[in-house]
């Protein structure tokens, strides 16, 4: 049975049909039961046979559709400090959710799928490396145990996501016609 999780604007869908388990409900759970802005949350969690993929998605390449407001994220502000801090908080804020749904055994991969004008793979890797420094890689090293809070972080665009040997099993596809930013 197909299991397509829609991103917040309903423009793209993540096809999780091949996932062992998947959820796009973290945000709703938090909004319904926590004080606002207590915890950040990622858009999707996808469980494979060997790992958990925590997926945050942002697409700043498309103009708002009629009736839609301008996207909160402007073209390139994924690199601004405030947005960057939010990205980091989303990872940390997602960890309690994983515990509550009993998904704490498999290694966690945090993947930021992002599209912005004038992007390229080098700028994405620069963002990935900056994220690595802010996520708990160094922290977990200090304890030397096998328990890890995070296994890897990645920043990819939609093409890279879809062509990746693991991520590509869960294709991210448009679900309606989109108008690119001019």
């Amino acid at each position: 049975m197909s299991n397509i999780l829609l991103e917040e604007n309903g423009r793209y869908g993540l096809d999780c049909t091949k996932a062992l388990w998947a959820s796009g409900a973290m945000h709703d759970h938090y909004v319904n039961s926590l004080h606002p802005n207590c915890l950040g949350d990622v858009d999707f969690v996808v469980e494979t046979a060997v790992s958990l993929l925590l997926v945050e998605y942002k697409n700043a390449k498309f103009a708002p559709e009629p009736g839609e407001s301008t996207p909160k994220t402007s073209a390139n502000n994924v690199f601004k400090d405030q947005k960057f801090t939010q990205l980091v908080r989303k990872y940390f804020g997602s960890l309690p959710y994983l515990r509550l749904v009993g998904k704490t055994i498999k290694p966690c991969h945090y993947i930021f799928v992002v599209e912005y004008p004038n992007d390229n793979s080098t700028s994405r890797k620069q963002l990935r490396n900056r994220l690595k420094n802010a996520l708990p890689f160094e922290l977990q090293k200090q304890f030397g145990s096998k328990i890890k809070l995070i296994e890897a972080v990645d920043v990819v665009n939609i093409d890279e996501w879809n062509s990746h040997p693991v991520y590509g099993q869960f294709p991210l596809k448009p679900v309606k016609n989109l108008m690119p930013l001019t």
Partner: protein
Amino acid sequence: MIIKKIQLKNYTVFDNQTMEFGPGINVLIGENGTGKTHVMKALYSACQSIERKISFPQKLVATMLPDDYMLSRLVTRKAGNRRASVHIWAGDNGAQSEKKLSATFHGKTKKWDAQVTGEAGWETAFPGTSSVFIPAKEILSHSCNLNAAAEKNNVRFDDTYLDIINAAKVDISVGRNSTDKDTILKRIETIIGGTVFYDVNRDEFYLRAGNSKQEFNLVAEGIRKMALLWQLVKNGTLVKGSIFFWDEPEANIHPRCIPIIVTLLLELQARGVQIFISTHDYMMASYFDVKKAQFEKSSVLYHSLSRGGSDDELHYSTSPKFGDLKNNEIISAYNSLLDEIYEL
């Protein structure tokens, strides 16, 4: 004049390569030895041969400087008797039909005695077109008597170095600037901290700030490069319809100046200057994508030359967007570095 296309057959590193250019900024990228500068020098030689006293193949020799000034040495070094040719197409943005200039030669061609076609039509189609080539190495600080020494064979510099000195010595430093020119000059002055002054009697360039003047050789090399650009804008070398070649603009330039240079080049192309640059710099190449949106009229086309495959053949690709360019060796190199940093 706008250069539209070049075809190189059995010429230096090129077996058979055609490249089509945009009317604005053309950014050539590729590893060392992939022929970026050879392309730019061939195009520059063609532009210079608009002047009736300059012949295309002779200028090719003068800019490439093969041993004994033998054009035959520019034939691809591979087995067999090869016939080399360089074909260049140019036109205007308007309705004027394209003109083609060609030079064909082989391993037994004497000196620069190539078979040339289209030169007369080329000269009459684009009279007075200005072209200038800034080489990767700064040369103005060594300008004193350099051209005289080169003429006497005391030193050996290719014509791009000698021509740029001559172009910079054209001194029209008095008089009012147009508003367009003023904007560009002021922008460069923020980097160089003054204006350029050529002392005819001493045959030397100086940087003038307020009441003081400083010898060019006492100024940082990056500043000297920008000062040269100031002089070329000031003296009218870079005007609408002219062709500007700049080999590795980023060399000796602090990264903080890169966005300013990119903006300057975009302003020049918006005023009708066709530009060819080669670069190894990620920031320089990326900044064109970032800054071009700020210009109502902008044309940027990236060209990649790379080697690959079983016989290490040359590959060419082109794209209006840096991130979409295939065989992008700058991106590949930076990504390898970033992956290594990530794995630390």
